[in-house]
C-alpha cells in the first residue's frame, strides 16, 4: 500500500523539481530576439541606402553592428546581474532604438549634399549623435542594474528622489527664458551648445517617490471612504496630496507652457494612486480635475491671455489646423499630410521626404517614419510599445512587494502615456505638445531617462520571476543578517 502510494513521477512531473519552472531564465530567447532586431535594423539601413543613394554601400551594416554590440553588452550584463529578467523587454526596446537611429541617419542623408552622402561617417550628423547617446544611455542602464541589486533599495532614497524630482521640474520654470525656452516650451536647461531636459529624469524620481508614499498611505486611502452613487469616494482630508500634485501639474502647464509634461505627471500620480488603492473613484477624480483644469486654462487663455495664451494657441491649432495651413497650423498639417502620403504600405524606407516636415527628428519622428513604412509598419512599432508596457505591467503583477508593484506598474504606464500623448498629438487626437517619442526621437535626455526606466523594469521583473529557492526575494541584497523576526513590531487594522 505504501509502495503503491509512493508515486512514480509521471512524464509531466519529471521537470517538477523545486524552482525549475521559475528558474527558466529565457536568456537565450532574449539573445535570438536581439539578433533578429539587429538584422531588422541592418535591413532598414540597406533599404534606405538603396532608395536614397541608388546603391548599397559596403559598410551599410556598421551602425546596426555598433548598436548590436552595445545591446549585446547589456544582454551580457543582464545574464550576469539580472538573470531572471523579462526576455522580451531588451529586444523590443533595441528594435525601437535601432529604427530611431536608422531613421535619423536617413534624415542626415536627405539633408546632405550628394558628395557628402557617399561617405557619411558613423558618428556624424543627428543619426551619429543619437548612436553615441544610445551608447551612453545603455552604459547608464547597465550601471543602474549593477548599483541597484534589489529594486526595494530604491525606497530608501524615496524622499531624496522626490525632492530631486521637484527641483528638476522647477528649474526650467524658474530660469529666464533664454536659458530654458525652445519653441515656446520652457522645458530645458541650456548652456553653451548643450541642452538637457530635466523633466525626463524628474519623471523617474517622482515616480519612485509616489510609489513609496502610496505604499505607506494605502491603508488610509483605500479603507476610509464614503459611498456615493455606488462608488467609494475618499474622505476630503485624504485628497490633500492629490490636490498638491494637481496644482504642481497646473503650474507646470502655466509656467513651462507644456500640456504634455503636465498631463504626464498628473496621469502618473493618479494611476499609481489607483494601483495602490484599487479604487475607480481616483481615476474619476483625476480625470475630472485634469480636464477641468485644462478647460479653465483654455478659457483663461482666450480671455486673459498672459501665461495661458500658449495653451490657448495650441488648442486652437488642434481644433482646426487647416485654418492657417501655412502659418500656425503648418507643422501639424504637414504631419497629417505626411502620414496620409505613407498610406497603408508607405513609400519604403528612404522613399519619403522627411525634410519637408519641421521637427521631424524629434516631435514628428513618428510621422516621418510613417511616411516610409506606412500604417502597417507604424502599427508594428505601436504593438512593440504595447508589448513593452505589457511586460512592465506583468512584472508589476508578479512581483511580491507593493513598492515593486507600484514602481513597475507606474513606470510601464508612464511609458505608455508618453507614447499616447505624442502620437495622439501628431495624429490630431489631442492638442499637440512637444513630448519625445520614447527611444525613437533624437535627444540624449529622453534616451537616457527611458533606458533607465527600462533598467528599473528589468530589475523588478528579475525580482518577480526569480524563484524563492534561488534566494532571490528572501535574501538581503546587502548580505546583512535578517532582523529578528520575533522581536519585530506587529500592527493591526481593526475593521
Amino acid at each position, binding site marked *: *500500500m505504501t509502495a503503491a502510494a*509512493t*508515486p512514480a513521477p509521471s512524464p*509531466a*512531473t519529471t521537470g517538477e523539481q*523545486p524552482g525549475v*519552472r*521559475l528558474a527558466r531564465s*529565457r536568456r537565450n*530567447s532574449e539573445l535570438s*530576439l536581439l539578433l*533578429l532586431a539587429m*538584422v*531588422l535594423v541592418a*535591413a*532598414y539601413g*540597406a*533599404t534606405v541606402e*538603396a*532608395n536614397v543613394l*541608388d*546603391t*548599397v554601400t559596403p559598410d551599410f551594416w556598421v551602425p546596426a553592428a555598433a548598436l548590436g554590440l552595445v545591446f549585446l553588452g547589456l544582454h551580457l550584463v543582464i545574464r550576469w546581474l539580472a538573470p531572471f529578467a523579462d*526576455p*522580451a523587454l531588451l529586444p*523590443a526596446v533595441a528594435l525601437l532604438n535601432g529604427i530611431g537611429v536608422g531613421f535619423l541617419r536617413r534624415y542626415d542623408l536627405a539633408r546632405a549634399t550628394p558628395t557628402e552622402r557617399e561617405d557619411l561617417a558613423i558618428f556624424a550628423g543627428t543619426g551619429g549623435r543619437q548612436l553615441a547617446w544610445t551608447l551612453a544611455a545603455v552604459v547608464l542602464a547597465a550601471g543602474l542594474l549593477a548599483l541597484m541589486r534589489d529594486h*526595494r533599495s530604491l*525606497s530608501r532614497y524615496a524622499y531624496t528622489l522626490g525632492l530631486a524630482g521637484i527641483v528638476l521640474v522647477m528649474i526650467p520654470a524658474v530660469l529666464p527664458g533664454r536659458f530654458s525656452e525652445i519653441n515656446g516650451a520652457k522645458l530645458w536647461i541650456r548652456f553653451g551648445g548643450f541642452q538637457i531636459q530635466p523633466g525626463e529624469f524628474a519623471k523617474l524620481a517622482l515616480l519612485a517617490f509616489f510609489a513609496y508614499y502610496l505604499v505607506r498611505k494605502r491603508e488610509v486611502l483605500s479603507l476610509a471612504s464614503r459611498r456615493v452613487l455606488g462608488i467609494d469616494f475618499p474622505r476630503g482630508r485624504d485628497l490633500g496630496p492629490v490636490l498638491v500634485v494637481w496644482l504642481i501639474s497646473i503650474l507646470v502647464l502655466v509656467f513651462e507652457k507644456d500640456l504634455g509634461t503636465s498631463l504626464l505627471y498628473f496621469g502618473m500620480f493618479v494611476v499609481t494612486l489607483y494601483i495602490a488603492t484599487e479604487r475607480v473613484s481616483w481615476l474619476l477624480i483625476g480625470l475630472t480635475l485634469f480636464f477641468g483644469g485644462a478647460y479653465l486654462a483654455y478659457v483663461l487663455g482666450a480671455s486673459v491671455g498672459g501665461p495661458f495664451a500658449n495653451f490657448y494657441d495650441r488648442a486652437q491649432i488642434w481644433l482646426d489646423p487647416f485654418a492657417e495651413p501655412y502659418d500656425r497650423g503648418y507643422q501639424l498639417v504637414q504631419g497629417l499630410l505626411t502620414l496620409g502620403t505613407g498610406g497603408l*504600405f*508607405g513609400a*519604403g*524606407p528612404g*522613399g519619403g521626404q522627411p525634410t519637408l516636415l519641421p521637427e521631424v527628428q524629434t516631435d514628428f519622428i513618428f510621422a516621418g517614419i510613417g511616411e516610409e*513604412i506606412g500604417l*502597417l*509598419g507604424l502599427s*508594428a*512599432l505601436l504593438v*512593440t510599445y504595447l*508589448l513593452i508596457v505589457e*511586460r512592465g505591467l506583468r512584472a508589476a503583477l508578479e512581483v*511580491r*512587494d*507593493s513598492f515593486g508593484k507600484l514602481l513597475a506598474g507606474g513606470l510601464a504606464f508612464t511609458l505608455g502615456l508618453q507614447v499616447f500623448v505624442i502620437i495622439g498629438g501628431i495624429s490630431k487626437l489631442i492638442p499637440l505638445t512637444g513630448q519625445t517619442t520614447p527611444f525613437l526621437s533624437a535627444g540624449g535626455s529622453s534616451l537616457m531617462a527611458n533606458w533607465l526606466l527600462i533598467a528599473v523594469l528589468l530589475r523588478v521583473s528579475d525580482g518577480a520571476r526569480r*524563484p*524563492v*529557492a*534561488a*534566494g532571490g*526575494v*528572501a535574501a538581503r541584497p546587502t548580505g546583512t543578517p535578517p532582523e529578528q*523576526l*520575533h522581536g*519585530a*513590531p*506587529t*500592527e*493591526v*487594522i481593526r*475593521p
Partner: protein
Amino acid sequence: MPELVITVARFGFLILLWIFVFTVVGVIRRDLFAGARSSRLVAAPRAVGASTGQPGAKPAKVKRGRAAHQLVVTAGQLAGTRITLGEAQITIGRAEDSTLVITDDYASARHARLVPREGQWFVEDLGSTNGTYLDRAKVTGPTPVPLGVPIRIGRTSLELRP
C-alpha cells in the same frame, strides 16, 4: 538599383517587422504557457487523498516523492498565487520584505513563517495578533505542516502542494 529589388526590400522589411513582433509574442506566450501547464499539475494534488491512507504517518518519514514543492494560496485576496519552495524559509505577513506579502486586514506585519527542516516544512507563528491556524488548531510552537492541509491567516488560506 532595379525597381524590383527596392520593392522586394520595401515589403520584405514590413514582413520582417511583423515576424519580429510575432516572435516576441511567441516568447511571451511560451512563458505564460509554461506557467499554465504547471498550474494544471498543481490543481490536482495527490497528497490529500494519499495522506488519509496512512493515518499514523510521522512527518519526519516524508518520502522524497511527496516533499512539498509549492506553497499555494487557496483563499483570500491572493488566491491562486503560488510560490516555488526551495531551501529558504518563507515569511508571511503584511510587511514589504515578507516572502509572501498578504494584504489581509487580519494579518500582522510579520505574521508567520514556514521553515524547512530535513524535508519537512514547519509553520511557526511570529507573535501575530489574530493567530495562525493549521486547519482548525491554533499554532503555538513550530508545527509540521502535512501536504494539502490549510494554514489559515485571517481570511487567507495556504496549502503545501507536491
